[in-house]
């Protein structure tokens, strides 16, 4: 197959605009999948992703297509993750393509991630084919959305395809447009090998598998290869292409998309964005854009039942086999016992992992409120990144602190500008720009501390804009900030799992809110419980829970004895799920309280 019969493309869209549905239709129309195998949204493999409508792992598939010009083409569809937490992975997937379908929901129009993804694609000089999806919807506003595509994204309205992925409308037209408009891959078969790793999976039989796009040269079994950023050396065992299953081939040449199996033990060995080259004849330069991804959001995860530690560990191990952006390491909390500090790319990533643990592994977890990485500069001129507020060094040793910032892009109808700006400034945001993209859409940019954005920012944004605003963000680095550690004390002893790092100006309000919240959550005990919020040695808020003085069954006669005993046995069960901190019993939701206050 010559290069001019290959087309590598991906679908980019705001979440829920129909990417997975369209991918399925493409597979169906090209007969890549026997109809009976075609479950809803084949490319999303995990239940939870299907349920939440999020594609987490990028996947790829090669379909055959006979175009109207009578020629046979190979189309490689590279799926991209649909959420802002995974924007690095999106970028890498785009790097494997020459073209992108930009899918826009006909009722919702252009959203923040539509814009962000479109910019990413045009930065990479991809050919963008705009598609308006869901035209079957009664509230489809095709003309308005077309206008947005030209005015906001700057694409020619001529090429816009109208589609309904659900009803199979426009799919042929899309495929024709890919063949006609997306350029075939370039690259030199005879140059030294350069293959971009854009994804990886773990297979229990085959080990870690790298998904690659060959840019130059050729890769085949037996070849000795080198990963340029990670500098690992491997011998290729097998290369192949993606059908519904992986199909081995003799070689992958420049322009092709496929997989590489070498003796890579874990997906941690495989860095997304890294370049594979030939060990004996290496390329002089790696492909651009590799950067290590680091988890930015952390939380502690503890088994609700202390006996569950081993199960939790093996579950985390299994999850991390297939998700290299998820990190975990053991930690011990005096309040919660043995557990793990887990790192995620973002909040959604965290939620997905938590849910998966509870569902797939049948675990009940106590999770601490999410926090971000803080960079601590000590008086000796060194710095360290800490992931756990309780690991903060002595105040005397701290020179200054930095916290991670994001550059948030919020797309909203103009009537909510005030609400959005109020929200952002209450979150210590620094206004950057307000840009009218057209009369209906305003793009607002803020620099925001990440720690403020993990505090239910997204939910608040949705609620103050009645669901109309959408959000995209990228990390912009660390900035110095006036941060303090806020401790919560129960009867005088600090509860490590409840500590958090907050901006100095907010410590008082947060401390007060937290103390109030804990007062509501903690049940009365047999003695008085004092709740204090403290910064250093200074107590800034205090609440007390009066002791329980009455818990008795007024009437207990012959017919009541069994029933009342069962009632008390149920109370006892509830008590077992509490966490004992000193002599105080804390319900599990207390550990999330830090997160859920507003």
């Amino acid at each position, binding site marked *: 197959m010559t290069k001019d019969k290959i087309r590598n493309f991906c679908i980019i869209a705001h979440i829920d605009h129909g990417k997975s549905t369209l991918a399925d239709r493409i597979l169906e129309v090209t007969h890549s999948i026997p109809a009976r195998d075609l479950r809803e949204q084949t490319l999303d493999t995990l239940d939870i992703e299907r349920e939440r409508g999020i594609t987490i792992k990028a996947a790829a598939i090669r379909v055959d297509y006979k175009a109207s010009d009578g020629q046979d083409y190979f189309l490689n569809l590279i799926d991209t993750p649909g959420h802002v937490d995974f924007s690095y992975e999106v970028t890498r997937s785009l790097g494997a393509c020459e073209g992108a379908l930009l899918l826009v929901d006909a009722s919702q129009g252009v959203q923040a991630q539509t814009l962000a993804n479109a910019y990413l694609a045009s930065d990479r000089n991809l050919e963008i084919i705009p598609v308006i999806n869901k035209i079957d919807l009664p509230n489809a506003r095709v003309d308005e959305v077309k206008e947005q595509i030209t005015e906001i994204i700057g694409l020619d309205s001529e090429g816009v395809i109208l589609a309904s992925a659900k009803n199979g409308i426009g799919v042929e037209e899309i495929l024709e447009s890919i063949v006609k408009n997306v350029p075939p891959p370039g690259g030199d078969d005879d140059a030294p090998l350069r293959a971009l790793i854009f994804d990886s999976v773990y297979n229990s039989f085959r080990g870690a598998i790298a998904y690659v796009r060959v840019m130059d040269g050729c890769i085949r079994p037996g070849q000795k290869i080198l990963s340029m950023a990670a500098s690992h050396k491997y011998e290729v065992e097998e290369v192949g292409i993606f059908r519904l299953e992986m199909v081995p081939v003799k070689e992958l040449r420049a322009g092709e998309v496929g997989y590489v199996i070498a003796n890579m033990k874990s997906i941690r060995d495989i860095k997304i964005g890294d370049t594979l080259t030939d060990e004996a004849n290496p390329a002089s330069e790696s492909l651009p854009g590799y950067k290590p991804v680091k988890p930015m959001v952390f939380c502690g995860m503890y088994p609700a039942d202390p006996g569950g530690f081993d199960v939790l560990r093996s579950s985390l191990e299994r999850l991390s086999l297939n998700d290299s952006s998820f990190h975990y390491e053991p930690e011990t909390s005096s309040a919660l016992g043995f557990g793990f500090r887990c790192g995620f790319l973002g909040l959604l990533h965290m939620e997905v992992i938590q849910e998966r643990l509870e569902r797939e592994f049948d675990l009940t977890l106590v999770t601490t409120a999410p926090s971000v990485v803080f960079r601590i500069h000590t008086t000796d001129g060194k710095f360290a990144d800490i992931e756990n507020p309780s690991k903060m060094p002595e105040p005397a040793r701290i020179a200054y602190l930095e916290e991670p910032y994001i550059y948030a892009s919020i797309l909203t109808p103009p009537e909510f500008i005030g609400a959005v700006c109020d929200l952002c400034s209450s979150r210590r945001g620094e206004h950057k720009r307000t840009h009218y993209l057209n009369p209906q859409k305003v793009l607002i940019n803020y620099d925001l501390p990440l720690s403020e954005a993990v505090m239910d920012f997204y939910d608040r944004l949705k609620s103050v804009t009645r669901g109309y605003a959408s959000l995209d963000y990228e990390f912009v680095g660390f900035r110095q900030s006036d941060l303090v550690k806020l401790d919560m004390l129960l009867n005088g002893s600090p509860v490590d799992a409840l500590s958090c790092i907050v901006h100095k100006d907010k410590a008082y309000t947060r401390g007060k809110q937290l103390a109030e919240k804990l007062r509501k959550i903690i049940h*009365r005990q*047999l003695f008085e419980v004092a709740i204090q919020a403290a910064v250093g040695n200074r107590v800034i808020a205090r609440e007390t829970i*009066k002791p*329980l*003085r*009455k*818990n*008795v*069954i*007024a*009437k*207990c*006669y*012959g*017919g009541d*004895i*069994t029933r009342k*005993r069962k009632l*008390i*046995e149920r*109370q*006892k069960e509830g*008590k077992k799920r509490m966490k004992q901190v000193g002599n105080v019993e804390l319900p599990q939701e207390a550990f999330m309280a830090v997160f859920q206050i507003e």
Partner: protein
Amino acid sequence: MTAVYLHIPYCTSKCPYCDFASVPINDSLDSYLRALVVEAEQMSATLSSVETLYVGGGTPTILSPGRIRWLLEHLREVLDISPLAEITLEANPCSLDAAKADVLAATGVNRVSLGAQSFDDAELSFLGRQHRAVDVARAFSLLRRAGIENISVDLIYAIPNQSVESWRNSLARAVEMEPEHVSTYCLTFEPATRFLKLLEEGKIKKKSDEGELELYEIALETLSDAGYEHYEISNFALPGRRSRHNMVYWSNEEYLGLGASAVSYLGGSRITNLRGPQAYIRAMETRGDAVCEIESIPPNMQAIETIIQRLRLKDGVDSDSFAGRFGISLEKALGSSLSDLTGLGLLEWDGQTIKSSAKGWHLANEVALRILP
């Protein structure tokens, strides 16, 4: 010692706080009474002489004088009721008249538990009761006139909006009548009652724990000043006038329950009858018993339940009689919870008896939580 409970599951209307098995009075009544007597006869073979008989409800005084007589006479025929037995019947002030009071005395009822609940008419109507404060005094004197020498008065406290004054007044009015026994029950919001629904809808407000305790303390003070012994969490008696029947429950001893929803505790099992009167009648007529559940209580649980029940009593648990009954020492049965609970000031242990402390009495569930395995 044999204790028998008999349930009359009929009322004129349903009180909004009540979760007892009771239905509006209807024509199943006579078949029900016949079924009761059949059940009593069947069980009689296993019984020794009956020392306490308790007719509860529902509203036993809803029965006509003739039916009360019929029932008690037939019970005497089929059961071996000791001449010294305590025979209690629950009476509702508004369904008690002179004729009924006389029948009770004539048929050997020697103790009446009078459901006064309150002496405040607004509270009574809030509680859905048909009677008014004057009816209580009237019923009480009818009983005395008929010759009932042992009368208990039930009162309810912590009624939403109940004031300290009205509670003091109810207690004073009760004491004035000089009953032998007083029960004071804290109003509770039981599942599937109208009050619980209203509470959840925010239409009525439950008193705070502190508010409840304040009223409780007032009862303690008033009643002990009047010479009543506070012998169980909610019960007070003049010397020698404790409820012998209820003492059986609180000591976790055996008893036989007859009628719809009645529970028996026999041979280490708790046996519950069908709840609905119709279902009970049908079951008695067709298969000759009305059992719907049998729970075998393992010996260690019997011991634990006994401790929990006995701790409701001022007397607490005596280590010798406990060891004699269960073949295991009290300390062993309690394990480490004993020192935990004495440490928390909920129990008092002098090497011979374990008792609830004043604090522990209000926290009986917390004690039970820590004692249960």
